[in-house]
């Protein structure tokens, strides 16, 4: 499996390490060299220092051959643009974007992009934990 991960923050880096350990081909793209510090010493994939919103960058990362693209930069707009390009222009079979702003989730789903919103997920978990703590009424 060939996976392109855009954004090497704590999520992108962690995911890249996990997939690489499983023996998958992984390319990580990030604008900043320092971001690749998130990668473990066993990471055996490729690192590309570039801005993935530049059309050339995804092409040179061979996006047309990718089985999966995960967009998890710090910028919601960038994630959604990359996810749409991957899905609608290059027909990548699995595409997912991280989105921080829950107010926009509905719109993104209208665009046909599968998203994960850490804010919503955390809120749900926090709520569950609070309710389970069985505090007084």
């Amino acid at each position, binding site marked *: 499996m060939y996976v392109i991960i855009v954004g090497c923050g704590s999520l992108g880096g962690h995911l890249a390490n996990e997939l690489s350990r499983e023996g998958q081909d992984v390319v990580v793209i990030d604008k900043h060299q320092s971001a690749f510090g998130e990668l473990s010493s066993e990471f055996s994939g490729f690192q590309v220092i570039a801005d993935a919103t530049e059309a050339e960058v995804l092409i040179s990362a061979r996006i047309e051959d990718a089985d999966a693209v995960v967009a998890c930069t710090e910028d919601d707009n960038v994630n959604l*643009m990359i996810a749409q390009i991957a899905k609608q222009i290059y027909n990548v079979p699995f595409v997912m974007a991280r989105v921080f702003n829950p107010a926009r989730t509905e719109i993104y789903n209208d665009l046909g992009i599968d998203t994960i919103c850490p804010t919503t997920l955390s809120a749900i978990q926090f709520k569950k934990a609070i309710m389970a703590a069985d505090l007084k009424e």
Partner: protein
Amino acid sequence: MKVILAGEGGKLPYFLAKRFASKGYDVTIISSDPEGSTVLARALDKAVVISGDGSDPRVLADADSATADVFVALTSQDARNLLMCQIASQRFGVPKTLALVNDPGNEENFCRLGIGAAFSPTNIIGSLVEQKISLDDINNLIPIEEGRVNISELVLKEGAPAVGLAIRDVPLLPEDAVIACIFRGDKVVIPRGKIVFEAHDKIVLITMPESLGAAIKALNGGRE
């Protein structure tokens, strides 16, 4: 007509807003730079200025986007321009969206992702410069449909290859170059095949950009 200009503040939205307001359009500016918004609001008495990020649907709601006819995204970030236009058209039903693309490579991608028109200043300025530099005879050049067709104006020099020839007899005039009109002194000459060119004729020419050079050479001679 209502136009929304979404940018980062600065000169581009300012001059566009002035231009559109003078034509009687309702103009709303969304500016992501709070200081820039204040400056724009002070300088433009005819435009509504909203401070905020145009890719946030709440800001688009504040701008009353549902009543807009045209939405123009002008920021320096291609991703933001794409999303703003998509939200404006899908959520607020704005009929026409235009996005500036900073990376010319994104022009085609944006069109395929449903943006009404994507325009790249790099491509526009680049092609203008390239055509101007090689074609000194051109007085005026207007790109149409993002430069897929040009209307240009040139004046026939004394002794130019086309002088003394009928339009239909000019050799090497490209198929996709059309003489739209000839100005001769005070007169307007409607170009038929048998009309004979004279020196100092001002010719209005419609061409594909790639044939412009060849058309000029056929009419006026010179390089290329």
